[in-house]
């Protein structure tokens, strides 16, 4: 009954193939779900919304004058991934993060990759994310990008592509964990019968990693947040709570003799390892942006002196740039002598002459992205935009080609999603989380973001996106 009206379509659907046959990964779920009435499902969706609100799983919306707290809508239908497909994702990400880490280390040391002209030197050295104070720096254990969350999409043929590498404090992992708790409660029996790989160990994996990074014998860990008005504050406090560490703001920390301390009711207490959720440039007003009120004066000196671990390492952002992204397959080849396990989405780099010409001529078919913007801002979706918008972006790109890249419009895969008209296909992406400590680990789960508006491809939470729980099956 439930899926009778569900359309087959030209896009890859995670649940049904082109002939409307249920894919094997979803068959158990479908069977279980069919025992629910439409009414019951709507009730479950209602209590899901309520649970989120009462847990305070809210984020503040930027660009919103009222600064309202919103919940990230969580859809009932999970995105299910078979173990064999997960294996590809896992290996692909491990390979990619290993190469990116070698790349960042090279950039701040010998710059061989630039000398060998694999990546244009000018592009890196002119990037505002290339931090000169980090040159020659050896972060603890040689690791720069400890915590990452790459965005992965699937095209019409079911092929996975990496869409973006989020190396700068990617958020969303708390949703991965909390979504699981909520959906598990919505479908307790169904969930138990399918054999879903657990994700609950993420906080301890994160804590182990942060303690492993700690340079000294002690390993007091803290999470550094900009404060309660940050859109991801819920996540910061959630992770601190789950790890049992202190959640600190810049004002709680003080640096003395190149060592970092928290101000406690019993005086100063040393901190060894910080998971910072503050951007590089706001970390330390003495080393970076002098205007920053969020950071801690002297923090970078303590880090340089080897008295503190910071995750991710300052300077990591240099590899998280939509222009650098285009070179990652070559970077993998260069450092690991391997072909990428998961491909990039084909990308045109506007600062390269031929690519620029192509982009300007074909702007109506392309997605144009600002290289430094996040969250779906500063973006043009060619086929959905008006003539006037095309012209506006052509001018923007021409005036400042370094700031833009372009990609063909990808049709993201869809997953059935509960809407006012029953289950309907909605486009999704996938953000798994990778931790780089003693080993590179990928949590068997992900944040699946879903564009709730029909046919929309924009999954960002700030622009009408929601989320789904992601189930990786044991087999």
């Amino acid at each position, binding site marked *: 009954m439930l899926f009778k009206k569900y359309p087959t379509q030209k896009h890859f659907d995670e649940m049904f193939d082109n002939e409307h046959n249920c894919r094997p990964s979803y068959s158990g779920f479908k069977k279980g779900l069919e025992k629910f009435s439409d009414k019951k499902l709507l009730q479950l969706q209602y209590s899901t919304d309520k649970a989120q*609100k009462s847990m305070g799983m809210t984020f503040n919306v930027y660009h919103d004058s009222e600064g309202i707290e919103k919940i990230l809508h969580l859809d009932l239908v999970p995105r299910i991934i078979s173990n064999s497909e997960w294996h590809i994702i896992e290996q692909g990400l491990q390979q990619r993060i290993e190469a990116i880490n070698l790349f960042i280390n090279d950039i701040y040391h010998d710059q061989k990759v630039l000398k060998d002209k694999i990546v244009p030197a000018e592009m890196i050295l002119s990037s505002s994310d290339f931090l000169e104070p980090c040159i020659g720096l050896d972060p603890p254990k040689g690791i720069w990008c400890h915590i990452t969350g790459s965005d992965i999409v699937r095209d019409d043929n079911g092929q996975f592509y990496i869409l973006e590498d989020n190396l700068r404090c990617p958020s969303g992992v708390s949703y991965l964990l909390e979504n699981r708790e909520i959906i598990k409660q919505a479908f307790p029996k169904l969930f138990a019968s399918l054999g879903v790989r657990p994700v609950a160990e993420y906080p301890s994996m994160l804590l182990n990693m942060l303690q492993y990074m700690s340079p000294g014998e002690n390993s007091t860990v803290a999470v550094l947040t900009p404060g309660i008005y940050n859109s991801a504050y819920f996540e910061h406090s959630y992770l*601190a709570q789950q790890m049992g560490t*202190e959640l600190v*703001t810049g*004002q709680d920390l003080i640096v003395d003799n190149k060592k970092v301390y928290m*101000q406690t*009711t019993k005086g100063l207490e040393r901190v060894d390892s910080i998971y910072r959720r503050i951007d590089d440039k706001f970390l330390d007003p003495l080393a970076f942006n002098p205007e920053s009120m969020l950071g801690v*004066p002297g923090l970078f*000196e303590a880090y340089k002196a080897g008295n503190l671990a910071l995750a991710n390492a300052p300077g990591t952002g240099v590899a998280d740039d939509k222009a650098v992204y285009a070179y990652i397959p070559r970077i993998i080849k260069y450092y690991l002598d391997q072909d990428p396990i998961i491909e990039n989405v084909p990308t045109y780099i506007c600062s390269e002459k031929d690519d620029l010409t192509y982009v300007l001529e074909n702007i109506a078919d392309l997605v144009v992205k600002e290289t430094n913007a996040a969250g779906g801002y500063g973006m043009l979706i060619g086929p959905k935009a008006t003539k006037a918008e095309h012209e506006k972006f052509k001018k923007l790109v021409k005036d400042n080609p370094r700031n833009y890249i372009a990609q063909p419009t990808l049709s993201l895969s869809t997953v059935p999603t509960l809407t006012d008209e029953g289950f309907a296909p909605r486009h999704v992406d996938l953000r798994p989380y990778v931790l780089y400590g003693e080993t590179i680990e990928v949590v068997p789960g992900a944040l699946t973001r879903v564009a709730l508006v029909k046919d929309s491809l924009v999954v960002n939470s700030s622009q009408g996106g929601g989320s789904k729980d992601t189930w990786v099956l044991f087999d």
Partner: protein
Amino acid sequence: MLSRVADSLFWLGRYTERAENYARFIDVNFNLSLDLPPGIKEQWEPLVSATGDKNHFNELFNTNYSRENAIFFLAFDRRNSNAIISTVRYARENARIVRENIPRETWEVLNDLYYYVEEACKKKIWKKEDPKDCFKKIKSQLQLLNGIAIDNVPRTQGWHFSKLGQYLERADKTSRILDVKYHFLLPSVDDVGSPLDFLHWIALLKSVSGFNAYRRMYGKIQPSSIVNYLVLNRYFPRSILFCLINVESCLHEISGSGPGYSNQAEKAIGNLRADIEFADVNDIFEIGLHEYLDELQQRLNSISDYIYDQYFKIQSNFTQEF
């Protein structure tokens, strides 16, 4: 524990206690108005006076002490930083700051309460003929918070900081509710000891949920016994002495110090607790109940300041030299 976190836990305790007391005040005064003999007008001015925000009220409402204005001001007026809607919001903000330090249920109940009060405000509850249920619900949610804490929070520093805030606030509020009686106007001097006078005293006991317990202990409604009960009783959890004993023991738990004192806050609370512990009702009436309570409130304020200096004040890392 981080100083900033201790500060937030302390205020979380204070604000939830304040909100609960305001809900009690309104509920009881509303009940009192139902019991009044014909011809006697309900009085909301005493309640507003007792909260210490009378001037602010007069500015906003031009001394019009209608029930509607008073309930709005005490519960839903965002311009009043002590109104329930404000204190619940501050409590939630503080809870948010220290979320990783409190039980998940505490956060969830407080968060739900926040949405409930916002909703009640949207529905303009103060205009309703009978807004009682709303305040009952607020009160019981806040009691639920206390219950959750008792069974879930480890008795470490965080617990003592939030209890410290709670008991300091409660001592202050019990003194204020007692002071309401001072502000209640009787039609004439002859009405002292009249049924109306009794009604006032009973209402007062009810507002601190102390009516039944008082009855068992003293039987008769007598001003001196009531003052004895609410100020000097060692066992009633809302009496001022009970609160002060707890404030003192929280402070000693936090510092780990034994008898005597190890900082200014401990010294001040020790003095205050002793003054009250060794007073009797006659000492209070000699000074005058209102004057006695007034001084007490000031001493509580200075204890709060000492606690801030001792535990919450942090050094600005921006003024440091390198």
